């Protein structure tokens, strides 16, 4: 198949739904980038690099956090920044402020845990309820429709309804 715009081989195939009509486009990589802004996009920076950059950016400044130490395991923020590995569970409390932005960068902007929660016997801590992320479901729905997987789309639609009514 050839690119609709030039005569290079088409490697990018798009299906758009506009006003209920399916429009297919077949383009080569450079035309797709030029016309649709697809492909050629610079890949995401790997997490390690993000972490390193983040740590490097912070290590220069004389921040007061540098002196804070975890009472449980004795690790300092500076030591963590050097090794990338925490010393104990309590570090997540001790360094919560410093860790939060770092964690957010490493996890596509996420700030809170959703998902499995331990049902600890005899525990008094109140576990947060499992939250259903409807944005994510909606994105999945869009993808399912694009992939013409209507069975899955229907399931997702029902899930979104239930979540939004809850």
């Amino acid at each position, binding site marked *: 198949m050839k690119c609709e715009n030039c005569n290079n081989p088409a*490697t990018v195939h798009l299906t758009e739904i506009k006003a209920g009509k399916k429009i297919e486009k077949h383009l080569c990589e450079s035309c797709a980038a030029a016309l649709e802004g697809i492909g050629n*996009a610079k*890949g*995401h920076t*790997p*997490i390690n690099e993000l*972490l390193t950059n983040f740590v490097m950016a912070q290590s220069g400044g004389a921040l007061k956090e540098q002196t804070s130490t975890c009472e*449980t*395991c*004795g*690790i300092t923020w500076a030591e963590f920044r050097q*090794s*990338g*590995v*925490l*010393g*104990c*569970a309590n570090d*997540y*409390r001790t360094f*919560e402020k410093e*860790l939060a932005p*770092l*964690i957010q960068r*490493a*996890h*596509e*902007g*996420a*700030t*809170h*845990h*959703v*998902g*499995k*929660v*331990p*049902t*600890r*016997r005899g*525990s008094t*801590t*109140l*576990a*947060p309820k*499992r939250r*259903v*992320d409807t944005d*994510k479901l909606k994105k*999945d729905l869009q*993808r*399912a429709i694009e*992939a013409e*997987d209507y069975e*899955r789309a229907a399931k997702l639609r029902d899930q979104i309804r239930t979540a939004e009514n809850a």
Partner: protein
Amino acid sequence: MKLNDLTSRAGEWLRGNGPMSEVVISSRIRLARNVAGHNFLSRCSRAQRNSLETKIRTALLAETDQFAKGLFYVDLADAPEIDRQLLVERHLISKPHATAEGARGVAVGEEESVSVMVNEEDHLRIQVLKSGLQLEEAWEQINQIDDVLESQLDFAFHPRFGYLTACPTNVGTGIRVSVMLHLPALKLTGEIEKVFRAAKDMKLAVRGLYGEGTEATGDFYQISNQTTLGKVEEDIIQDFKHVVIPKIIDYEHHARRTLLNERLTALDDKVHRAYGVLRAARMITSEEVLLMLSHLRMGVNLGRLQGIEIRTINEMLLMSQPAHLQKLMGKKLEGDARRAARADFIRKKLGVA
């Protein structure tokens, strides 16, 4: 069940009969967990490390009937190097876990589809490994194992950050979903880079046969998630099952069809050359075996070569690795002697003297 019994057979996941097995070798899910009230391992004294190991081992062995049939425990601090290497080759422990120091171990059960590493980077690294694309099944099983272990051990958990891990990149669910793919056609058509780029855009990692820090040899690639916070486990799994993996499988199928329709002679040449090398070689390295077996596997899957089972190919993949080969031969082998033993083993498996 002893470690030595492992050498004589292939694990469940290598049988090669799972769903989508023409492209998907195996599905793996692991959970990282730490025991509350104990420091993470980098801040453990030798005594603390020992007591942790004892505590977790006891918990694992107390509940064996509930989660893993035929569970056995290997004390890795005490195990010879070749045994540790064997466990790495079987994907039951990580390379760092094999070479680390101090009290540590691994529990293995359910025909090697379940393994729990003790005192790796985190206190526990629970793993379920299945053949073909079986992510939901793997999740169901590992979720149950996690529940059983949780009744014995109090896991470190934070209301905001979820399950707490030594490295903040694993925090939250502590889950890593990995699918091992065989993508020889995409490699031959030069389109594999596109898969890498797409994976990166989706925040997924692409690695080699043995996970972190290993090169992809023989067109075997491991795709895994990197984001562990802010997503429900089931969503991560559904994403893999319905979006990521089907897309890559489609690409590979498309590339395979292209080879069949447009480059049949070149394809046959690759496949039969590989078959020729494996049948004729008198000395061969494990890298070359991987590459040749990859082409052979493609040839069998595309019907260009008859009379060889995928299972046999998988067995050769596993058994021709250094530790397995030496266990099989019952002696330490190096250099030329090892390469010769490997070539002999392969020829025998392929029915040539």
